[in-house]
């Protein structure tokens, strides 16, 4: 049972990362220690768990939904739409009259709009999966261009704030903002995990899944909506944190050889472990100065993808895999 061992391993890494995140470098005692622990360390660690688990889960769900290992929130336009929405709120100085901060609302709307555009291609009934991904890439590029235009229009303070935000980091949040992000996130993740059985069957291909009883269109819409909500609320708060959604499901597949059903929960667990671990490194790698966690997830994620996932693997029949010459 390789996947049980992997689940224990991910859990172990997660516990170590959480412990480090909470106590490494903490003052021995005193009021300051309590404040740092309860008001800074705990909410930040919880936010890390939330962000990592969500990005890992959404990445795995998208790869299954689109049946393509390139499909992640970063590549189908969800993250780019969310980033554009949050940036617009920041640069235009939008004020929200709703309970949620303006950036969260705008990010969700941006993620929803981008995802809806991609879904409209996906649900047209004529598009192949590659074309859906192509639409996602187009939306990502367009959102990037509009972001540049917003930057050009912004004044200096807004430009600085947006540059800070776009690095992708876990901000210092209070419990109230943490709860505001956690609500939509948890709702989105719950829908994805609730639909794990449908997603697992959908991985057999659209037609076969339908013949087995899956209402494939409804599931696609549900999963895309739930993912937009979760990713939108994260991007609004933390900025774009790349590579988690792409790397984590691949790592899980490679190490755990998960059953189709355990891919989603294992990706959730591994995503949380990866992000909290990266955040610990981001805080302590350079003394006295904190790196944005998004820099580390990408800086560690790219080589990990090259050396761990893209390494040629042995085939069942003992032959060497085909290579490009």
């Amino acid at each position, binding site marked *: 049972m390789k996947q049980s061992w992997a689940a224990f391993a991910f859990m172990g890494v997660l516990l170590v990362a959480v412990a480090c995140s909470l106590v490494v470098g903490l003052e021995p005692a005193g009021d300051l220690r309590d404040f740092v622990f309860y008001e800074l360390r705990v909410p930040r660690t919880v936010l890390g768990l939330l962000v990592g688990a969500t990005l890992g889960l959404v990445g795995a769900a998208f790869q*299954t939904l689109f*049946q393509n290992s390139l499909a992640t929130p970063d590549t189908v336009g969800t993250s780019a739409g969310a980033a554009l929405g949050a940036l617009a709120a920041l640069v235009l100085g939008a004020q929200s009259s709703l309970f949620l901060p303006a950036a969260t609302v705008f990010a969700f709307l941006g993620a929803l709009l981008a995802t809806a555009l991609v879904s409209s291609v996906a649900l047209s009934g004529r598009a192949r999966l590659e074309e859906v991904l192509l639409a996602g890439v187009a939306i990502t590029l367009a959102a990037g261009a509009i972001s540049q235009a917003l930057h050009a229009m912004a004044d200096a303070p807004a430009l600085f704030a947006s540059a800070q935000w776009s690095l992708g980091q876990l901000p210092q949040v209070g419990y109230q903002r943490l709860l505001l992000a956690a609500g939509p996130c948890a709702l989105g993740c719950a829908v994805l995990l609730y639909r794990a*059985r449908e997603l*697992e*069957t959908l*991985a*057999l*291909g659209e*037609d*076969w899944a*339908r*013949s*087995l*009883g*899956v*209402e*494939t269109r409804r599931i696609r819409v549900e999963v895309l909506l739930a993912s937009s909500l979760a990713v939108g609320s994260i991007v609004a708060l933390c900025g774009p944190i790349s590579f988690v959604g792409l790397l984590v499901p691949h790592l899980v597949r490679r190490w755990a*050889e998960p*059953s*189709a*059903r355990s*891919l989603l929960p294992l990706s959730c667990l591994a995503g949380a472990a990866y992000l909290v671990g990266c955040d610990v490194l981001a805080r302590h790698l350079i003394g006295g100065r904190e790196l944005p966690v998004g820099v580390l997830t990408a800086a560690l994620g790219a080589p990990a993808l090259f050396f761990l996932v893209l390494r040629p693997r042995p085939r*069942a029949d003992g032959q060497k895999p085909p290579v490009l010459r």
Partner: protein
Amino acid sequence: MTSLAAGSPGAKLAKLSARALCLGARLCDVSLELEAGQCIVLTGPNGSGKSSLLRVLLGLEKPDGGQLELDGRSYDGWSRIELASRLGWLPQRPGLAEPRTVEELVAAGRFRFRESEAVARAAAERALASLDATELVGRRTDRISGGELQRVLLATLVAQQAPLLLVDEPANHLDPEQQVAAYRALGRLWQQGHGLLVVTHELGLVRLLGDPTRVRVLGLAQGRVVLDERLDSPQLPAALARLSGVPFRSGGRPGDVSIDWEALE
């Protein structure tokens, strides 16, 4: 193995009826009926509309014209789960993008039952046992041979417990032993009361399904039904020759149809 007994009580009454189906230039005025206990073999040259017809019958594609009913009710009123309780599909070379264990794949056939993982797994293992594939439990679908995979796909079909089975080229890419095994397994399902619609080019193997007087052969050409004979009919070889452009002959036993190699030379 009583694969129907555990299904709904009315399962044996399942009846699919298609009248005057049209789909672009691919299907034209196709009518057929399939009931539990019946067996239809659908043949015809590549591009004659066999796959399109299968997709329409499965409800995967909407016909432009004609009526499509299951148990006397139009397809429009059926949910996917309900359709899956009546119609099972053995796809040809399905995509298995996400590798999984054999019993997980077979358990996917249980989707319509909305049951717990343990119950689905037990049912999957029974289905595998009915196809003498118990030894494949625990193996991964990307690490078994083509013949083993076909047995696993058949087990997935059995696990679904649908009374009507639509089967696409069950012997493709298999060695002779596995071809015979696949057709014998389908024949057993027919004897148990399932209705079979088998799409195939391999008419020589069809005899293995069972009683040739009860097997109906339909031939499609350019989207139309141009051949409708019983497998043991003396007219079948000549009709197949007209359909395919290759001479056919009957062998010594009823239902024994094959390409007439001597006439070909």
